[in-house]
């Protein structure tokens, strides 16, 4: 089994804003494109033009309906990828050391050269965040775009994960969650960011910002002054109009 580092210098991860995510799948496909062409084996697709196509994706968006006790049902879009846990069970379960967590920045990666495709890590991950590539026979997972974020051939502004760069609504943020002063940590603090399934004890680095309360219509009587009638007859309305124009 594989050891986790005792300590990581940074905790790089994502902050995903569930109040803003419109469920457009832009992050899903940007990730698919980048990671097909870059790190390791391409993300393959089986039966690509057939009855039931299925392929490897490192990031998927799920949608859940929530029906509150009172008020209208809501739809929450929930993008999910590896959460780069501090206590990553997918690493400790790996029989070959292929799964590992970088001590420098906490990113959890698979060294494909050592991966035997046993699938134990996917079983161990409580989030279902790893996918076995059917063509390459190796385990694939979010790399946090480790080949972008330090890439000196890219302009500095582009050294962020592909999913963050592409997100049209600005619902995805990247940074060091180990630094309480970082923008992402501040955002988590301000918006009450949460861990996914904390009871699993995995200490995920990625955080989710919960949806803000919805359908909180202010009481009509609070807004009533805004609709106080200016007159109680058509003649009265014209009189108000005349006076109002005089004041312009």
């Amino acid at each position: 089994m594989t050891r986790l580092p005792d300590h990581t210098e940074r905790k790089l991860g994502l902050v995903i804003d569930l109040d803003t995510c419109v469920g457009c799948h832009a992050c899903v496909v940007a990730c698919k494109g980048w990671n097909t062409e870059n790190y390791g084996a391409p993300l393959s697709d089986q039966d690509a033009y057939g009855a039931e196509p299925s392929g490897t994706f490192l990031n998927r968006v799920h949608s859940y309906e929530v029906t509150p006790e009172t008020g209208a049902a809501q739809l929450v879009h929930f993008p999910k990828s590896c959460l780069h846990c501090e206590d990553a069970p997918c690493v400790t379960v790996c029989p070959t050391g292929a799964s590992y967590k970088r001590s420098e920045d906490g990113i959890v990666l698979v060294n494909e050269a050592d991966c035997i495709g046993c699938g134990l890590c996917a079983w161990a991950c409580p989030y279902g965040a790893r996918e076995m590539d059917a063509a390459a026979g190796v385990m694939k997972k979010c790399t946090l775009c480790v080949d972008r974020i330090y890439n000196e051939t890219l302009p500095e502004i582009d050294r962020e994960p592909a999913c963050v760069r592409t997100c049209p609504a600005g619902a995805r943020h990247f940074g060091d969650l180990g630094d309480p002063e970082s923008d992402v940590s501040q955002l988590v603090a301000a918006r009450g960011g949460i861990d996914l399934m904390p009871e699993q004890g995995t200490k995920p680095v990625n955080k989710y910002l919960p949806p803000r309360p919805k359908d909180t219509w202010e009481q009509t009587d609070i807004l009533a002054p805004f609709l106080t009638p200016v007159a109680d007859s058509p003649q009265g309305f014209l009189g108000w109009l005349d006076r109002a124009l005089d004041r312009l």
Partner: protein
Amino acid sequence: MGHLEPKLDLSPKVSDEIRKTTCYMCACRCGIDVHLKAGQVAYIEGNRDHPVNKGVLCAKGSAGIMQVNAPSRLRAPLRRVGPRGSGQFEEISWDEALQTAVDWMAPLRDSAPEKLAFFTGRDQSQSLTSWWAQAYGTPNYAAHGGFCSVNMAAAGIYTMGGAFWEFGQPDWDRTKLLLLFGVAEDHDSNPIKIGLGKLKARGARVIGINPIRSGYNAVADDWIGITPGTDGLLILSLIHCLLKAGKIDLDYLTRFTNAPVLVNEDPDSPERGLFLRDAKGKMLVLDRKTGLPTAFDAPGVKPGLAHGYRRAGITHRPVFQLLAERYLSEDHAPEAVAERCGIPAARIHALAAELARVAFDEAIEIAQPWNDFRGDRHGTMIGRPVAMHAMRGISAHSNGFQTARALHLLQILLGTVEVPGGFRFKPPYPKPPEAHPRPNAWANPGQPLAGPHLGFVMGPEDLALRPDGTPARIDKAFTWENPMSAHGLMHMVISNAHAGDPYKIDTLFLYMANMAWNSSMGTGRVMEMLTDTDPETGAYVIPRIIYSDAYSSEMVAYADLILPDTTYLERHDCISLLDRPISEADAAADAIRWPVVEPDRPGHAGVRGFQSVLIDLGARLGLPGFVAEDGGPAYADYADYITRHERKPGIGPLMGFRGDGSATGRGAPNPDQLERYIANGGIFVHHIPEAAQFYKPWNTAYQDWAVKLGIYDSPQPYIFNLYLEPLRKFQLAAEGHGDRQPPDHLRARIRETMDPLPIWYPPFEGAAIEVDTYPFHALTQRPMAMYHSWGSQNAWLRQIHGQNPLYLPTGLWERHGFAEGDWARVTSPHGEIVVPVAHMAALNANTVWTWNAIGKRKGTWALDKDAQEATKGFLLNHLIHELLPPKGDGLRWSNSDPITGQAAWFDLRVRIEKITAPAEAKPAFPPLKSPVGHGPKDLAWKVGR
């Protein structure tokens, strides 16, 4: 095992080269950075410098690599060898294909040019395609607006000189309250998402008004699950509340709208309801200083609203009084409309109050002086930070034009149009109806048309009628049935051509429109019309069909000659201010596409950009403008046309780098223009000066800037049409006034629907049937990750949206005892389908819906014939008819808006029954033979191995 870390290459080379062009995975036209390795597309991401998407990119855009390599790409010109609709073709050479087209088209031009009907679908080159059709001389040209969103576009132009999306946008940086009406998850894709992100980041409020709570409506702070087709009722009720409370911007209304313009009220006059004008034709208002009628634009005039004016015994009252009288009526009270809208009255009051609070109590002010067209100087720019956006959800109903008008009226009464925090126009808009052409529809053998086909009619005199009163156009655009059909009626072309009503045609020439599948109402019937033969001669009723598409779509099988187009990464294009622009509210912008990879179809005759083919055909046919003085082709190809064509002296398709490269807007053609665009990232952006950025229709600084750029030839200030006088002119005709008279059977409908002030009436289809028999509204939405048919050939996108259940609301689901995996029969007055269903709680209780255009015909798009899109996917189109159910009067009544002719897709009503799960969705059609074979089984795509 100890903690071991391999050494990683953290700076791998991303690409050999980045080529910047324009996306075409949907209609939004974002900028993309195409990364190439060894000449192949390796990765696509958003262009950070592009005005539309500012670096971000949606799922479709990022999946472009699977489009440019799609196995469904056509490879060579095709000639039909089997019966129409079989998909049996042989590949032919380009010379043969072009000669065939010329042999068909040339004799028609010399005898009866109207017998060529040229309609383009999701065409982004209408400036060229319409010019070609004008030169050919057929009146029968339009693009797809008639079945898309013409109600929204036309109502916007007629009311205020522009609508949403390409015409204008919310002031995303300043608005504090956004209302989204009937916006599916698309247009405009990335800008709305970027904008919503900005609003969310600063805590501004978003209210979604839509029967379905998905996508943008899912993240809205508040959702109003309105009953389809009743948006106009809701909006007019909001207007009622605001008027009653005096929460309207009177200063704005008197200065910038026709609220003060005097209207003739003489019940006996042929001018009843028309404006009082002076000898020069200027609209008159009552000046509060002098008490005299005065031209609306006279310097120093202080227009009044509260008093009428009597002249020669005739009462004239300001528009505003007619408007107040109508909407203050208790018929428009929230309590009177709540049930029909499916919204509690208290919520309508609350929404009106919130609009009033934000518009007036949270008004903003920018310290920027400006001058208006009357010569008045304003010290600051006042903003009312309420913005609205709407699209097809309110547009695709038979009451959509008046509903869209009502929405613009609401914005204008609040004073939120072209002000900080409100709705802002994007150049070349604002542009009032008067500044657009009138329709031209008079064909003469061998001659070009006198002017553009499509335009804005200002009264019965502008209708496209032949001397005998019959329609001049095959789609019956600009006739009494739909006088203001500014985008034509593409959805009526096949039906009318098949019926020979108003006349027969010879050649149907289509580009990029899947009319044999998801773009037609009543898909099965359209397939029959396309294959129907004359029993006597055995010839096809529609004798010849030429089609251009890049992919093996359903429509390909129904054509006789296929001119294969390139994919979007293999072609030149211009995103032009003469066409559908991509400007921003504070800048004019245009862009190009260019072949970032060469079209490569090894072993086949290859493909050509349709626009280049059209230019070639123009030259071969000898069309004016397409032939040089020496008799040779005027343009080598589309790129040459983009560079050298001048629509007016100095004005060409692209505004940037003109003349010696330093001129913008106006300037001689520059042979290096495309190279300059490529070097500039494929775009050109020209900013509007600070003092000209708001109040554009009235702001002299904007008007002068627009003239300098070439958008106008002279300043054209105008006022907004709360009251739309051209509508009243049609009503007058229907009342018996004037030379041009409608047929009697249309008089009542014209009187009732062409009201010069916005009205609401029930959608026609619901009014024509027993609604208890068809109790549910049925809608489609386009998902964010799929565009029309195009996405289904995309190996990545079809994994996201490969299936489309019919979503049913909770009450219906429970009443029928539906469970996961169940199927239902869905019946409309026009047909039935059998489809898989799913439950959705966040849905109007009387509405069912599904994703648009997921269903596919077997054998198309290079998919296996057991692809889920072909076995479980389905279209609602089978349930929709381009005509209303028969009324027993022997007449054909079209299922369209009576003002614009917009296809009323969303008036559909159905009933639902649970049935035993069948083997596949119904109707099922036999497989088409694929002209391109099938895609590979598996993909592991990596170009830089």
